[in-house]
């Protein structure tokens, strides 16, 4: 099996890395941010909130000019946190709804709203890319929640004009 990064262009990885840096600067230090190809099993340990930046799609959207191409790079931002019971509680029963609501609110405010800021488009990623789309693809994965892990997915695409 080839190394995963052989499937990605250098530019796409650069975008994902820069996005990771952007989130790392924005989020509290306690949140662990990493660029990966899939969330690691670590997130199932009770070790706080994780934000995984995963490069996903890449395409040339349209020809802008005779020697310029509009290119698009997609990334998924996966937020995970394992529910930790209060010390006095037993490890049984469902995850409290209020905890899930808090998690969803955190994702919306700190990931979705932050990355969907079109005003910030003047401050471009890698000085070239602007946010084209941003959506919460999965608010809360119910299957993962059965295992007491909150998983939410935000998908973003960035575009730039490049020679080509």
């Amino acid at each position, binding site marked *: 099996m080839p190394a995963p990064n052989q499937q990605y262009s250098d530019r796409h990885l650069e975008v994902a890395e820069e996005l990771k840096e952007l989130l790392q600067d924005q989020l509290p230090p306690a949140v662990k941010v990493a660029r990966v190809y899939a969330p690691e099993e670590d997130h199932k340990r009770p070790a706080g909130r994780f934000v995984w930046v995963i490069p996903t799609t890449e395409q040339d959207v349209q*020809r802008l000019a*005779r*020697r*310029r191409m509009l290119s698009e790079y997609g990334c998924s931002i996966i937020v995970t946190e394992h529910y930790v019971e209060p010390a006095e509680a037993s490890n049984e029963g469902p995850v409290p709804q209020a905890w899930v609501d808090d998690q969803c609110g955190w994702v919306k405010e700190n990931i979705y709203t932050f990355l969907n800021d079109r005003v910030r488009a003047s401050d471009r990623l890698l000085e070239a890319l602007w946010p084209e789309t941003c959506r919460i693809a999965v608010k809360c994965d119910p299957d993962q929640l059965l295992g007491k892990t909150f998983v939410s997915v935000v998908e973003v695409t960035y575009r730039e004009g490049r020679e080509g």
Partner: protein
Amino acid sequence: MPLKHGVDASAYINTSGSFGSPAWSELDLFSDLTPNGGWDAAEINIRRSKVKYGAKTNLDIGFTGRMLCDSADANYLLLLAAWQSLTGTVDLLILDGPITTVGSFGYRAEFQITAGNQPQPTTDVLYREFAAVPYPTANIPKWAEVTAGPTVTFTDI
């Protein structure tokens, strides 16, 4: 059959300041460019036949072109400055293929830029729609053809 493709068409601006010794720099931010090519025709009516005759008089070699806006591109800025100027001209070479490909054909003239419309849709990147007409400088317009070499051969229009 060597088909020609729009994406390979090319336009160049002379950056040397000399008509006789041009330095061609490609205007590669054009997306669509339409060189005009219509002759005006004078009407001729004579008793020889009932048809309406005509004779070519003047050729329109103006053009319209949609250019991607890039304020860091020196050639875009030259066209922008020419559009802003009341009297300024730019020496342009308009070809239907690369300047390095034998058989590329078009024309060259000193143009005034007469339009620079810029639609600003929220959902798109910005282009400027330039229009140009040849200006009667001392250098008369030329047919341009890339011949063996490759070299651009000019003949008066």
